[in-house]
């Protein structure tokens, strides 16, 4: 059976890694290439790397960073930041990305997902969406790294992404991001029946049991880790060993 994936989620600002809390208060967390080498050596299942300023600055992720990572590392790389055309995506693939990650421009125009899936195949197109729980308790979708709210309902958008050929879906709970208090389990339980493609949870992982609970209770295929890895005393080897002890199917490296 396929193993659950544990994915370090790298946020880039230009050439450096950064990490915030609820998409604010960012601190520098190092060099992307050396960090990628560390997690590759520890047996991470994949690395997702997204430049969170690219869309706002009307550019794409620095593709040289992708090339440097794939030259040094032997694990799949999903890369994104500012991708809004086939040409942008092609640059990332040519640099060595295995998958591209689209967010803002897919929300603004879901047909981008169809164009990319037709050109590169669904398996190479990861769609990422950022949601925040409102005071009323419903979820609202944000773009441009949590700075702009859109009207569309997240479930409606997700269904469109699936229909247009998204290969996997990353859902980030903005209010959990960097808080280390656990995932938004209800959010993923509500999304899971909508999607047959792999579902990746992001935002909130703070300890081993958060990951166990997510993978046992929500049906998510994978989880993204951020602050827990970058700014707390955890590593991939210990995380996987703990999960294995709890009978969660993970790959040993």
């Amino acid at each position, binding site marked *: *059976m396929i*193993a659950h994936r544990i994915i370090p989620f790298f946020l880039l600002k230009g050439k450096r890694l950064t990490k915030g809390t609820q998409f604010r208060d960012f601190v520098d967390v190092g060099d992307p290439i050396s960090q990628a080498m560390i997690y590759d050596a520890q047996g991470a299942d994949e690395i997702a790397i997204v430049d969170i300023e690219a869309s706002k600055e009307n550019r794409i992720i620095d593709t040289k960073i992708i090339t440097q990572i794939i030259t040094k590392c*032997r694990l799949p790389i999903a890369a994104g930041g500012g991708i809004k055309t086939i040409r942008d995506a092609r640059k990332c693939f040519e640099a060595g990305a295995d998958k591209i990650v689209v967010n803002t421009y897919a929300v603004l125009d879901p047909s981008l997902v169809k164009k990319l899936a037709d050109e*590169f195949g669904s398996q190479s197109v990861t769609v990422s969406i950022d949601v925040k729980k409102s005071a009323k308790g419903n979820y609202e979708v944000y773009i441009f790294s949590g700075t702009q709210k859109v009207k569309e309902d997240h479930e409606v958008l997700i269904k469109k992404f699936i229909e247009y050929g998204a290969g996997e879906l990353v859902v980030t709970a903005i209010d959990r991001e960097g808080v280390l208090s656990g995932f938004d389990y209800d959010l993923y339980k509500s999304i899971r029946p909508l999607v*047959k493609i*792999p579902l990746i949870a992001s935002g909130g992982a703070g300890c081993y049991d958060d990951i166990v609970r997510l993978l046992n209770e929500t049906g998510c295929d994978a989880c993204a880790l951020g602050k827990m890895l970058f700014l707390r005393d955890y590593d991939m080897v210990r995380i996987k060993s703990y999960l294995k002890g709890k009978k969660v199917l993970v*790959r040993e490296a």
Partner: protein
Amino acid sequence: MKIGVLDYGLSNVGSIYSAFDFYNYDVSLVSQPEKLKEADLIVLGGVGNFKTATSRLKELRLWEALNEEVIIKKKRILGICLGMQLFADVSYEDGETKGLGWIKGKVVKIEGDSVRVPHMGWNEIKPVRDALLKGIHHNFFYFMHSYHFIPENKDIVLATTNCGELHIASAIMQDNILGVQFHPEKSQGDGLRFLRNFVEVLS
């Protein structure tokens, strides 16, 4: 031993190249038929659409060259993911497209009630010929695909992988032709050792 990695515009050749380069093999990227003649071992990767892949290979005159080197001269070839699927007679991805026709069989969409498509992530291959798994600790490799190869002759299947209720062919070998559905170049240490075995143990 010269390793030629086909570069025809849509495979992730950088990762394949750097994986062979890790062992300091004499590896080069090949996009011209003349260069293919110089290779002793051929690697055909590929990510994306079957139809696009066949037309790119034909545009670059690599289609005929591959037949010459692999079928006539019997050079050893490794097909990875779409590269392995191209060995089939036919693929039903995006219509119906003829493949290289080296291995009897067809490429169809992964479908099943309990199957999540794309089949994406690390999955186990079993069983497999010992020679190819020399030095490998766990049989988990990285998969990333929505279509799979169903060969007619089950005897050429080296390994299968559970994908929901399906058992897909994850490695096949027929004479000098080896194909894997997973990505050894993306499968960390065990993937590297698999590639090393392709070069050193099988020879």
